[in-house]
């Protein structure tokens, strides 16, 4: 279709990072994720991007050198589905922009409500979480999500890509009922959007008058054209299958299946269809009383065995947003129950990058990618590891902005009551 002037159409805001400097980070063990760990490696960063990485890198004379001996470098963690930026205090309504009312919210754009000064950002950066996929949560067709960097002077600067995907909560009631009311509503909206799209084309061909503006249909147009993927949000095995069946019937080809540990039961179908998945939580109870105690723990291993590309999240609720950084522990739990450790690490770095369309930009430490990484005292998935420094697009993030650390320092310095403190 020639008429591609719809303003929402896949705006990739991949402006060149701004940090104009060449720095060689030396001495650390580098975990590129895309390859083997490099001991005493060199990460050469120029103007915010990775210029070279390896154990034997030619460091140009003008480069500043940073010694990170004893630390481990990892690509920034990526949360594949969160409301970070849309929530502040869960119980205070005025701070909640996660969930619009109504069932059809196709024209909602998550990024425009991201509060760039949210107090939740800095503690997450301090945990190594440097990129987030921000997803709106209201209704059945929920609107479009955005990939954001966790650092920036406003949401526009933070937005790396938008729209990343259109989010559809597949109605559970449709799992066994093709004539489900909710699903019928979604189908009707998609049919109307198609009609509107044809009418727009007819108009642009000079064959018909211009149809009335419609934000929702305009937002759905690139989805129906296959230019914006659909993230299908599901609950259990049955509605997961039903959702994929429905997507096939609708001719939707770019699909990401989002759901809980039941995803493991669809592993072969996902692998065959090359459908990536977002696993909403490893730290979840088995959904059914008779399931093995480790039913959720093993989901990652089952998906990986079948060859599915997947991201591990914490479910992405307002409650978990403050600790979105801790997706590493969920990935680690999956590793304790059979998931290869390298794959576990990929599930919170490279695979989410690929799933949100930023596989060429982020998710691993490779030449040409953004210099978005962190330095930790050990294995990034271990709970006892401490994250010490973080860089976004080559610029070191000032971790003293972390309000939790501020409170820690302040009260640690409180004089003791007996005068010895």
């Amino acid at each position: 279709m020639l008429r591609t002037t719809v303003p929402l159409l896949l705006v990739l805001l991949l402006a060149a990072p701004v940090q104009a400097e060449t720095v060689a980070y030396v001495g650390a063990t580098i975990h590129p994720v895309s390859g083997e760990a490099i001991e005493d490696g060199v990460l050469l960063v120029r103007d915010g991007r990775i210029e070279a990485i390896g154990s034997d890198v030619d460091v140009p004379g003008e480069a500043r050198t940073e010694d990170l001996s004893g630390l481990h470098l990892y690509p920034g963690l990526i949360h594949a589905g969160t409301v970070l930026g849309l929530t502040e205090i869960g119980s205070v309504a005025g701070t909640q922009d996660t969930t619009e009312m109504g069932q059809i919210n196709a024209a909602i754009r998550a990024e425009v409500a991201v509060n760039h000064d949210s107090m939740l950002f800095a503690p997450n950066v301090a945990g190594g979480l440097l990129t987030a996929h921000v997803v709106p949560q209201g209704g059945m067709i929920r609107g479009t999500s955005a990939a954001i960097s966790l650092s920036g002077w406003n949401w526009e600067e933070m937005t790396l890509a938008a729209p990343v995907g259109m989010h559809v909560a597949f109605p559970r009631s449709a799992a066994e009922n093709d004539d489900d009311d909710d699903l019928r509503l979604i189908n009707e909206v998609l049919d109307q959007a198609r009609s509107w799209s044809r009418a727009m084309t007819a108009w642009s061909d000079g064959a018909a008058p211009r149809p009335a503006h419609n934000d929702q249909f305009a937002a759905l147009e690139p989805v129906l054209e296959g230019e914006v993927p659909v993230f299908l949000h599901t609950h259990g095995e049955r509605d997961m299958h039903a959702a994929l069946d429905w997507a096939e019937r609708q001719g939707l080809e770019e699909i990401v299946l989002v759901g809980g540990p039941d995803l493991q039961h669809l592993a072969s179908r996902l692998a065959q269809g090359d459908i990536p998945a977002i696993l909403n939580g490893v730290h979840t109870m088995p959904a059914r009383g008779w399931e093995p105690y480790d039913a959720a723990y093993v989901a990652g291993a089952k998906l990986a065995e079948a060859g599915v590309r997947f991201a591990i999240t914490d479910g992405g609720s307002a409650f978990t947003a403050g600790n979105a950084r801790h997706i590493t522990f969920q990935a680690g739990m999956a590793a304790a129950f059979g998931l290869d450790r390298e794959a576990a690490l990929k599930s919170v770095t490279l695979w989410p990058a690929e799933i949100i369309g930023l596989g060429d930009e982020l998710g691993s430490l490779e030449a040409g990618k953004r210099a978005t990484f962190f330095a930790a005292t050990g294995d990034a998935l271990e709970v006892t590891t401490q994250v010490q420094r973080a860089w976004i697009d080559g610029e070191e993030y000032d971790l003293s902005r972390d309000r939790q650390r501020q409170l820690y320092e302040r009260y640690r310095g409180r004089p003791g009551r007996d005068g010895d403190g």
Partner: protein
Amino acid sequence: MKMTKLFVLTVAVAMGPGLAGAHDIEAWNSPQPEQPDHVLIRNATVWTADEAGILENTDILIRRGEIRRIGEDLRAPRGSIEIDAEGRHVTPGLIDAHSHAAMLGGVNEMSLISTAMVEARDIVDADSINIYRQMAGGLTTMHLMHGSANAIGGQNVTVKLRWGADPADMIIDDAPGTIKFALGENPKQSNWQPDNPRYPQTRHGVAQVVDEKFQMARDYAERHEAHAGRNARDRVPPRRDLEMEALVDILQGDIDVHSHGYRADEFLALMRTAESHGFRIKAFHHVLEGYKVADEMAEHGAGASTFSDWWAFKYEARDAIPYNAALMHERSVQVSINSDNPELARRMNLEAAKAVRYGGVGEHEALKMVTANAADQLGLGHRLGRLKEGMDADLVIWSGHPLSVYSRPDQTWIDGRLYFDRERDLEMREAWEAERQELIALVRESENGEGENDDEEADDNDDQPDENEPGMQLFRQLMGGA
């Protein structure tokens, strides 16, 4: 179709033998494991959670449910069960000082501002699948608490996760009584619109109510004392009041106060109220701003049982920091880390590990936060939470370092009985699934009359309902696995 069948299945499984013939109602439940005379665990790295610290290449000898000896190259008494734990770690069984994971029905008696008369021991749910799942995560003891809807809540009960035992047999008989208090947004009903708002609606109101209740309790005690002895014969006795009796027990030190709270101001207020009535707060729970008044808590003698890292979910959790445990620990407050959540309680070792990540608590000290310290706060430090001679043989054998995300419990022992064994769990899965299918078949048979074979149904592997379907909700409710 399926709703009906599900319902029948639900009822059949819940009622057990009546409908399902010889099948036990607790398909996943086990008979109590035997208690061997002697168990010898060899060559483990032993985290004692006690002065002895972490011991390498160490043996633990268990005798009839009690730790008999800890040392190197112990001799195995005849008939001992021997376990080679080379390369593995052993810790005390983990203790969750704040749980609601095995309680029937309402955790909160919401009605009154003080419900000191109600007791959690009446609603212990021995069939909750949470018990097994938490044990599989190394938990052996939990403090089942009343909710936080009232300034003075109900009485709690401490149980061991003796999967398969009756409720009464789960309760630790010599545990001191404990009672739940609550401060802040919950007792003042901030986050919902009650039909009939009750006093108080502010933090100073909560403080006032607690003070007044203890004045009443002292008057009550005086009236009873005055009536005792010689005077008793001639007068009508004062009316008995179970709420006041509980508060008098607090005043006399027979019931320990465990108070939910988030903000520093309210901890301070409650400690001063308690001091004015001559008692102490045993522990503050969640205690998110405990780090702000750690010195005051240490002086008062209050312990702290905190969330590791929850924050920003309520306004009063705005200043919660994951360094809380470390900061309070540094200021000599005895710290435990609790779950308040049945899923989280399956990995309390990793909750403890967060105290290492945030604030650099030593690993052994961190482990104490889910073992020894929790035991002390529950008044059970004399028999639980540490590995040393004479203590209950409640312990976990881990596949690796207990604070590592990559480790799993291989075995969980309670009272010297092997309650959870991962190998056995893996072995039994097929048998359990077969039994479940058999039960489903029986139910279908009874529903379809003469065992009419519905091929389509039989081949439908999708008969596992989602948990939110009405039949499943009832099922879980009846089976207590919610």
